[in-house]
């Protein structure tokens, strides 16, 4: 139980990686703020699942792409759960399109949610973390922020922004007892990327992954729990790929597909 006595806030925790992360942190003993924007029932299901396992959690509504609401979400977590030690910036959206077809609002919306929410929640949590000289931030980013993919320019740019912000935030806050890292999943089959997998169930993508499979949401949650816990005490400013080896290989990793 690495996170006994700790309070964690997971944004976008009603589904996908956020949901798995909330459950995982709770299983390590953390009390968890389960943030959601619109899926109240799903968020309450996550809370119920944590409580059924004798954990502590509250569902906290708020659109964290809005600075004011992000501040309220952080404040409510502190008020309801008696503190805050771990912030997992997970909330994210995708608006995949070729740049030829992309509208300005397509990148702005994605940037506002994916990167804006990281900024908003980080800034809201920092005074609290610095005051107690104790705090951990884990940003759920993507390998897409380090590499490119057709139709992902806006999403990749938003994740690239998160990665750069993660490094800067880590060096600015290290002296205040705060660690900041990011996990970079490759492909994880959640609702977010369902379009990519529609065609053939992801078969053609899987063939190009050295480990021949997708990251499960629990694989990502495990990595987040590691970075959120005491076993990663000297790690900050790191971008941890969870990609089955995708980022390690030369694009033409095999002579034929």
């Amino acid at each position: 139980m690495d996170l006994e006595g700790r309070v964690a806030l997971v944004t976008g925790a009603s589904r996908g990686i956020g949901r798995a992360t909330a459950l995982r942190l709770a299983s390590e003993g953390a009390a968890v703020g389960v943030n959601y924007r619109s899926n109240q029932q799903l968020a309450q299901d996550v809370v119920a699942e944590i409580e059924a396992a004798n954990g502590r959690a509250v569902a906290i509504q708020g659109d964290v792409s809005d600075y004011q609401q992000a501040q309220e979400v952080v404040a409510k977590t502190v008020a309801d759960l008696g503190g805050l030690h771990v912030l997992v910036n997970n909330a994210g959206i995708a608006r995949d399109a070729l740049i030829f077809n992309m509208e300005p609002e397509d990148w702005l919306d994605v940037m506002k949610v994916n990167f804006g929410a990281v900024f908003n929640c980080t800034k809201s949590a920092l005074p609290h973390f610095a005051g107690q000289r104790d705090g951990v931030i884990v940003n759920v980013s993507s390998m897409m922020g380090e590499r490119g993919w057709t139709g992902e320019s806006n999403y990749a740019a938003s994740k690239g922004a998160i990665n750069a912000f993660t490094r800067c935030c880590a060096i600015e806050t290290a002296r205040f007892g705060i660690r900041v890292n990011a996990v970079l999943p490759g492909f994880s089959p959640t609702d977010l990327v369902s379009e990519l997998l529609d065609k053939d169930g992801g078969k053609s993508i899987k063939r190009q992954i050295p480990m021949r499979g997708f990251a499960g949401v629990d694989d990502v949650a495990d990595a987040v729990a590691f970075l959120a816990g005491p076993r990663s005490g000297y790690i900050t400013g790191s971008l941890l790929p969870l990609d089955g080896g995708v980022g390690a290989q030369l694009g033409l990793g095999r002579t034929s597909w």
Partner: protein
Amino acid sequence: MTKEEIYGAVHPAVAEALGLDADEVTAESTLMDELGAESIDLLDILFRIERAIGVKIQAADLSEYVQGGIPDEEFGDENDIITAKGLAQLKKVMPQLDVEALSGKLAAENVMGYFTVENLVTLVAERAAVTV
């Protein structure tokens, strides 16, 4: 809280935030000019003080405190040199200043360079009194 107790919290906060030995920091040391504090160091010092004695001071409060609510255009002249009115205010929060020598010579951007550990202790003491 006595002034000695506050100094006892501020002194180590300054030394630790700046990575200095305890004897390198005196009450008369100026934080920025002599000890080399930058804005992130000031933040660190203020958070350490908050943690040690529970007195919360925002970084933005520092310059407001020094300027004492005097509007910018009255605090400095058109060349951003501190006015007589400004100097009179500065003398209140930084009594060590030689106001006569600085008259007509002190640029606004250099004001914080004169702020000492002792001046910070005075500010913290004021805030502590309000908090309690």
